[in-house]
């Protein structure tokens, strides 16, 4: 039915994991892409430098929802450094650079998005929001990540 929306992505779009907002997060951020209207809210509870709990909310396309959902499963017990390294690997995968597929695990499903370069930012938005949240000291006000103004590491070169 669709090359892009394979069964893993659809499963996470239809029944996203860890949806909502934590009551007392230590870190929070909203990531948005003003060009397409995707918005992701990430709330995290960090203890001993590790992510103990995380929830994702917001309005966004199926890729954004699925990516957010897979992210919440992937980052249990991760440190802020783990998140940044995984995001870098994810961007490498999306930009068709050599990527750490062991680290990515399930996230490797997003390589299908390479065929739709206009949708790459939908996949990385939740991760950028999470990374932005973790960059702030605990207890800070909700941080913001603007996908349009931020520098992108997703340049893939010209497509045929």
């Amino acid at each position, binding site marked *: *039915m*669709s*090359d*892009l*929306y394979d069964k893993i992505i*659809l499963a996470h*779009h*239809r*029944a996203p994991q860890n949806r909502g907002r934590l009551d007392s997060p230590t870190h929070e951020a909203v990531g948005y892409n003003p*060009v*397409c*209207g*995707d*918005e992701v809210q990430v709330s995290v509870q960090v203890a001993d430098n590790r992510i103990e709990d995380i929830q994702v909310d917001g*309005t*966004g*396309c*199926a*890729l954004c929802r699925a990516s957010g959902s897979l992210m919440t499963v992937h980052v249990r017990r991760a440190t802020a450094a783990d998140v940044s390294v995984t995001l870098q690997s994810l961007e490498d995968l999306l930009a068709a650079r050599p990527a750490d597929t062991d680290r990515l695990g399930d996230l490797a499903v997003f390589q299908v998005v390479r065929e*739709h370069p206009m*949708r790459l930012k*939908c996949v990385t938005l939740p991760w950028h929001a999470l990374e932005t949240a973790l960059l702030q000291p605990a207890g800070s006000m909700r941080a913001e990540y603007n996908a349009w103004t931020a520098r992108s590491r997703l340049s893939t070169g010209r497509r045929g």
Partner: protein
Amino acid sequence: MTHTTHGATDDGPGIDALDVAHAFPALAQRVRGHRLVYLDSASTSQTPQVVIDAINTAYIELRANVHRGVHTLSARATDAYETARDRVAQLVGAESPRDIVFVSGATAAINLVAHAWGDANVGAGDEIVVTTMEHHSNLVPWQQLCERTGATLRAAPLDERGAVDMSAYGKLLGSRTKLVALAHVSNALGTVNPVRAMVAMAHDVGAVAVVDGAQAAPHLRVDVREFGCEFYALSGHKMYGPTGIGALYGAPDVLAAMPPHHAGGGAIERVTLQRTRFAGVPQRFEPGTPNIVGAVGLAAALDFIHKIGTQAIEAHERALLRYATAAIDDIDQCRRIGTAAPAAAVCSFVVRGVHPHDVATILDERGVAVQAGHHCAQPVMEHFGVPATVRMSLGVHNTRTDIDVLIAGIRAAVEVMAR
């Protein structure tokens, strides 16, 4: 391309859409294994072979500067450029080609008015009235003019169908109103505004009227003297012409009194190191070497439109839009955004449970090109309470089969993404 006139056909009277489609070489390509179904003409249009040929010929036969030279090529280029100006004047119903300024597009045209007319005529305490349906290109220049001059911007609201609330518009107009800026056709909704009436109301309070015709000129008859507007802007790339060329119509007395905005060679009558006397109109507003080849391409596009006939185009697209909107209404999960009448060439909709980007991607997988997003009309999205819509927009080459493929794609999107 042959112009065949039929009786009433499925594609509307007076046009053979398949014939017209063959005039566009781009439509022969496959996208992701499917025939390209191009339904994004409101964003930019496809280019007929005759326009491509005119541009190629221009690059071979009249590659010279205009107005400046003595030699043969320069005379040829000048003649072609000024003939193109003539064509635009004819298209919009201007009295003289002197009323037409070539610019890079409708956005540049509106910015030219905002600076050249606005800076000289608008001051603190004055008001500028726009509508809530404006494309950002007919909104932001006026915001900036207000910031520069201390004037106030007022926006006429829309009703629930996406038409301008005329009573509210009337109430916004007053003795302080210096300028009104309005779209002829909304790019996000397709709403056709009652331009003549709205311009008349602006004149009643002594305001000038600027009409954004970017979405109208490809689809409807334009008559600037009938509308009475002081300015009318159009873009070549929206009407089967090349990118980088557009035109601003200015009423002769208004243009004559307008100081130049950008300065440079070709816009002057006499230059010394200390002082410059500016040229007459429209040269005063065309400094530097213009987009000569673009103007020639635009003229070829206008000839293409003229050969089919504006009435035939209007009728064909009206019938096709009716067919499309009925089919979209037939899909349970679809809700049209913007249901005002009359409407031209555009249908925006949302699909319950499926984000516009996902609809557009699934359509793209089937070779169908539509736009998903805010369409550079964020106030419109806010009015309807949606972050984005899917927008399909018609060109003269579209057929019922194109719409059928679109509808099948929307139904597929619903099936794939349903939660």
